[in-house]
C-alpha cells in the first residue's frame, strides 16, 4: 500500500481540541467532522486539504481527549497518512482502530517542509520526499498492530470480518 500527497506541517503537542473542537462533538457524521478538521490551529485547512495529502507534525501528536472524532475528522478530510515524531497514546490506538495510517519518524519530521510532495510505502516504511529528493525511514509497527491494520481495524479483527 502506498500514499502520495502534499504536506501540511504542524508543530509539537497538536491536541485533539484543535484537531476537532468540542463544539462540533454533537455529531458523529464523518463529513461534518471533516469540514471542521484542524479548525482552531489552521482555520483554512479543511478547504485547502486535497485527497491524499499528508500531515507531518512534531512530538505528542493528538494529545488530550480520547475523542475518536479527531482521527475520524482527519481521515474523512482526505488525509492519507499522519507522520509525527511521536503520537499521544490514545490517538495512536484510535488511529489504528479506525484505519487512519500513522507513522513515527523523527528523521522525516526534521527534513520535510510544508508543501513538499511526499510518498509513503507502508510495506517497508520508507518515506520518499519527491520535492527534496530524500528518503527517510519510519519505525515499523509491531506484528500484532500490523494485523489489526491489515484486517481493516479493531472490530473487523475481533469479529472475524474482512
Amino acid at each position: 500500500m502506498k500514499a502520495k500527497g502534499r504536506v501540511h506541517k504542524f508543530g509539537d503537542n497538536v491536541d485533539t481540541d484543535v484537531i476537532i473542537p468540542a463544539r462540533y462533538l454533537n455529531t458523529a457524521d464523518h463529513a461534518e467532522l471533516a469540514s471542521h478538521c484542524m479548525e482552531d490551529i489552521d482555520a483554512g485547512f479543511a478547504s485547502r486539504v486535497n485527497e491524499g495529502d499528508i500531515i507531518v507534525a512534531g512530538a505528542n501528536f493528538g494529545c488530550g481527549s480520547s475523542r475518536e472524532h479527531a482521527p475520524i475528522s482527519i481521515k474523512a478530510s482526505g488525509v492519507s497518512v499522519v507522520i509525527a515524531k511521536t503520537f499521544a497514546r490514545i490517538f495512536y490506538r484510535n488511529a489504528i482502530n479506525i484505519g487512519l495510517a500513522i507513522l513515527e519518524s523523527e528523521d522525516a519530521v526534521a527534513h520535510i517542509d510544508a508543501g513538499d510532495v511526499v510518498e509513503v510505502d507502508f510495506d517497508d516504511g520508507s518515506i520518499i520526499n519527491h520535492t527534496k529528493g530524500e528518503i527517510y525511514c519510519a519505525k515499523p509497527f509491531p506484528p500484532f498492530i500490523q494485523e489489526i491494520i491489515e484486517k481493516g481495524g479493531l472490530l473487523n479483527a475481533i469479529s472475524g470480518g474482512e
Partner: protein
Amino acid sequence: MPMTMTQKILAAHAGVESVSPGDLIRVKLDMVLGNDITSPVAINEFEKAGFCEVFDKTKISMVMDHFVPNKDIKAAEQAKQCRCFAGCHGIVNYFDAGDMGIEHALLPEKGLVKPGDVVIGADSHTCTYGALGAFSTGVGSTDMAAGMATGEAWFKVPSAIRFNLKGALQPGCSGKDVILSIIGKIGVDGALYKSMEFGGVGLHSLSVDDRLCMANMAIEAGAKNGIFEVDEKTLAYCKEHGAGEPCIFEADQNAEYDEVIDIDLSEIVPTVACPHLPENTHPASELTEVKIDQCVIGSCTNGRLSDMEVAAKIFAGRHVAKGVRCIIIPATQEIYKECAKRGYIEIFIDAGCVVSTPTCGPCLGGHMGILAADEVAVATTNRNFVGRMGHVTSKVYLSSPETAAVSAVKGHICDPREVME
C-alpha cells in the same frame, strides 16, 4: 521478573504469571465506560460490526455528562441514542439527567470501581480511578465497542515512573498543585505510554479526593495510567461507597522503573498552568497581574465535595469581584445535594456565583460558560489548550479550587494563602 503495581494487575487480568514492558496482552475488563459524546460512535461501531449482545450488563457504565442537560438538538439526539441502546441491552449503570454526575466523580461514588480492577473508558480522564489502586485508562470509541462486545481489551504493557511522596501539604495547597507541579516538571509527554506510580510515606497524608484529582491528570503528562498504592484511606473510601471486595496489588520491592522522582509535599506551592499547555506551570504568586473574566470551579478533576468545601470557606462573607463570572459545578447529584444541606449553595449564591447542575459543560467549551474572544478564565479543570473553553483567542489558567476561588474574589490570579487563614 519483578513487576510494578500496574504490571501485576495487568498480568492477573491476562491470566499469566508475569508480564514485561512492551508485551502485547489481552486482558479481561471489570468495567467499560462511555459518555454522551463517545458512546454514540461506539454504538455505531458495535452495531456495524454485527454484535447483538454486550458481554455483561453490569460491567458497562454509560454516563450522560458532557452536553447534558442536552445543550442542543444534536446533543439531544446523541443522548437519545445512548438511552435507547442502554434500554435495549439492559445496561444497569446508565446514568442520565437527574441521577448522573460527571463520570469520573460518579463511578467511585457509586462504588463501581475498586482496587485491583481493570477499567477502560472512552474518555481520556478514565485514568482517575488509579487513585483507588485500579488500572484504568482512556481509550477511544472503537475500543469501547470492542470492550462492550468481548469484555476484553489489548494493551502494550507499560513501563513506569515511580513518584515517591514524602512530607505533607501546607495549608492552601492540594492534590491539584502537586499534579500541576509534576506535569510542569516532566512535561505533557513526560510519561508518554507509561504508568505514573505514586507511593511512599507521604501518600498517606493525601485525601482520596486529592488522589483522584492527581490520577485524573496523569493523561496530561501523556501517561497510560496513574496509580496509587492502596492504604487504609482507600479501603475506607471503598467500603463507605459500597464497592465490592478489593484486590490489593503491591509493586515488587525490586520492581524496575524508568525513573524515580522524589516529591516533598511540604515544598509544593499553589501552582497555576498558564495557556496553552498544562506543563506551563508557575507559582500562583507570580501571576497576580493576570486579570480574569471568568472562574470555573468543578469538573472531573475538582468538582468533589472537598473542592466545594474549600470554595465555600473562601466565598463565605466574600463576594466575586465586579466584572468576574464565577461558575460552580458540583460534580454529582450527591455532591450537589450535600452542598445544599451544608449551606454551601447559599454561600455561593450570596457571593454572586452561578451554581449549575452537574455537567462537564464549560471544561471542554461545550456549554454553560463559553469564553468570548480574548477572555481569560481561571479554572479547576484539566486542559488549557487553544480554544478549549471557547473562542480560539480566549485563555485558560488551570488551578486548584483554593486558587480559583480566591482569584474570583480578587479579580486576578492570586496565591490563596494571602486570603486563607
